[in-house]
């Protein structure tokens, strides 16, 4: 039994590392956007478009890192559109976000047709499990560099929002637009930049999906991961460091279903496959009840006002 426990544990650690990266990038991007006082529900569109652009670029140029960059640029352009439209009077950012989600996926499906068949060069992993003779440990510790980039970015964002002038401006814009204007800050410009940067990160999350894991482009690739990542931001209460834990937890529970079946616990796999969503709901209910949660929400968000 301890063997079986080890298998599941390793699968969950491996799953957390493999599956969490796109969630992490999208959640960090959304955190930055929401900290400036806007909600961009369209990041699912960025994720899918980023995945397609990354795959197409990697296939055409032979360089997967060029694909990662192109995915970021595509995400930036898409989200800049969101940021620009939302500054117009009487525009609802949530409705625009849903429109941009459909626009992003639609563009990706339309232009992605010729790239379903070919195989593009993919990102390499760093083997960190060389010290272990156990093949499972070695497999679980095959880590893509983008995972570490995501971790570093989370720390950087956390530090930047807390300690720098730029961070202060973003937070102020998100908490009280009136105060920001009084300070002479252009609220629309800050939000445009925050939304576009968030879109850049979400695009890179998409590149991870198509260029590393699962590592191919097709139309059902994301299956709603971008939407879940937006929900993770509330779950992480707008804190970039908590986004890391939320993404890791989500990835680990996602690996639970297949891992349990592989050691022979095959009853009720529909339930285990739903585990990440059930867990998110439970934590959302618990955290929504605490007073601290409502204090941490940026005051300018349309869902808070």
């Amino acid at each position, binding site marked *: 039994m301890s063997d079986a426990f080890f*298998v599941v544990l390793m699968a969950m650690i491996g799953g957390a590392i493999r599956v969490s990266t796109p969630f992490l990038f999208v959640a960090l991007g959304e955190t930055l956007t929401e900290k400036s006082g806007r909600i961009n529900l369209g990041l699912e569109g960025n994720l899918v478009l980023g995945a397609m652009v990354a795959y197409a670029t990697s296939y055409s140029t032979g360089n997967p890192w060029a694909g990662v960059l192109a995915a970021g640029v595509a995400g930036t352009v898409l989200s800049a559109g969101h940021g620009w439209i939302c500054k117009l009077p009487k525009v609802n950012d949530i409705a625009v976000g849903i429109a941009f989600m459909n626009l992003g996926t639609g563009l990706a499906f339309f232009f992605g*047709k010729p790239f379903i068949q070919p195989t593009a060069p993919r990102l390499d992993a760093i083997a960190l499990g060389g010290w272990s003779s156990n093949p499972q440990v070695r497999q679980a510790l095959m880590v893509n560099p983008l995972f570490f980039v995501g971790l570093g970015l989370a720390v950087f964002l956390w530090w930047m929002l807390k300690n720098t002038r730029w961070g202060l401006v973003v937070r102020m814009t998100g908490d009280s637009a009136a105060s920001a204007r009084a300070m002479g800050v252009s609220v629309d410009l800050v939000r445009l930049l925050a939304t576009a940067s968030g879109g850049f990160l979400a695009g890179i999350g998409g590149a991870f999906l198509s260029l590393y894991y699962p590592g191919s482009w*097709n139309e059902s690739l994301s299956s709603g991961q971008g939407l879940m990542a937006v929900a993770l931001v509330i779950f992480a209460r707008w804190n970039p460091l908590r986004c890391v834990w939320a993404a890791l937890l989500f990835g680990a529970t*996602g690996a639970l279903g297949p891992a349990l*079946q592989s050691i*022979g616990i095959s009853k009720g796999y529909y339930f285990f496959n739903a585990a990440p969503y059930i867990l998110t709901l439970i934590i959302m209910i618990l955290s929504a009840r605490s007073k601290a949660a409502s204090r941490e929400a940026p005051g300018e968000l349309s869902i808070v006002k």
Partner: protein
Amino acid sequence: MTMTTISRRGLLKAGVAAAAASALPFSAARAAGDITIGALYVGPRDDFGWNQSHAAAMDILRGVPGVTVVEEENVPETDSVAKSMESMINLDGANLILATSFGYYNPFVLDTAAKYPDVQLRHCAPLWNPETDPKNAGSYFSYLNQAHYVNGVAAGLSSASGKLGFVAAKPVQTVLSNCNSFLLGARSVNPNATVQVIFTGEWSMPVREAEATNALIDAGCDVIGCHVDSPKVVIETAEARGAKTCGHNADQRSLAPNGFITGAESKWSTTYKIYAEALMKGEEVPNLIAGGYHNDMVMNTPFGAGATPEAIAAATAAIEGLKAGKPIYVGPLKDNKGNLVIEGAMDNYAPELEKMNYLLDGVMGSTT
């Protein structure tokens, strides 16, 4: 509200009638016997899976003189399939509609068939009922489990451990039958072979398919078979881990240059050629076409680098056996809960096998 009675479709029809009248000399120049065949796919036509298997057959038809092919991809199993079919009939002049996804049948194919009695509609699943359903509708399907049996034979002799894995979508009869046949194929050459199955719960969910493939390889499986809509992710993930693979639905050999053994494919071109020939001669189009190896409706992908010479020899012999009607299910066979489910030898097309809701002894996994 009289405006609503003029439907978009009706307007289009009127427009087409006008266009057709003005183009009359050209349409009259069309040779007698020329036909148009329309196909509808639920996903992209180059998905390395189910849709590609149909699209490949349509490409073969495209080369037949006198046949015009029209196709539409990504047609959801909703009212939009009815609209697509009507547009193929009214705008493209389709004589035959091939509806390739399960959920297209009821009510969309049935209603369209009743509305257009001069057009033939054929649906890819065993659903047509000769008593109640329109005479211009019909079904065609293949017994793909025969090709999965051949996969199993080749996998059993290409595996070092005798532990095979199977990534499955949902525990429905066709999937269970393919998985069980895969096991029986492997057991026919290695009595100790086992198949471990992981159900993803969805027809297409790439991240979970990759997770399932990794979990099976972590559990010691060295050959991975599958039944999901688009096996590309499964095959590529297994190849990257150094495991061997068996394909499903379409030719996936190019995805795994080192580990691909063989794959189970339906040969829809056989059926489609029968349809086209009947239409061109003005004969009746058969309502029901079903079959497997004996009537050239399934095939196996050419062997890849993962197949050992013994595997190739045994699998080729197994194909000859199936063509001659050698049964796959030979009792007594127990399911993996210990119940006796098959007593004697079953014909490969026996109706009892259509009710399969169990995994055989030797398959590790559960249907619930």
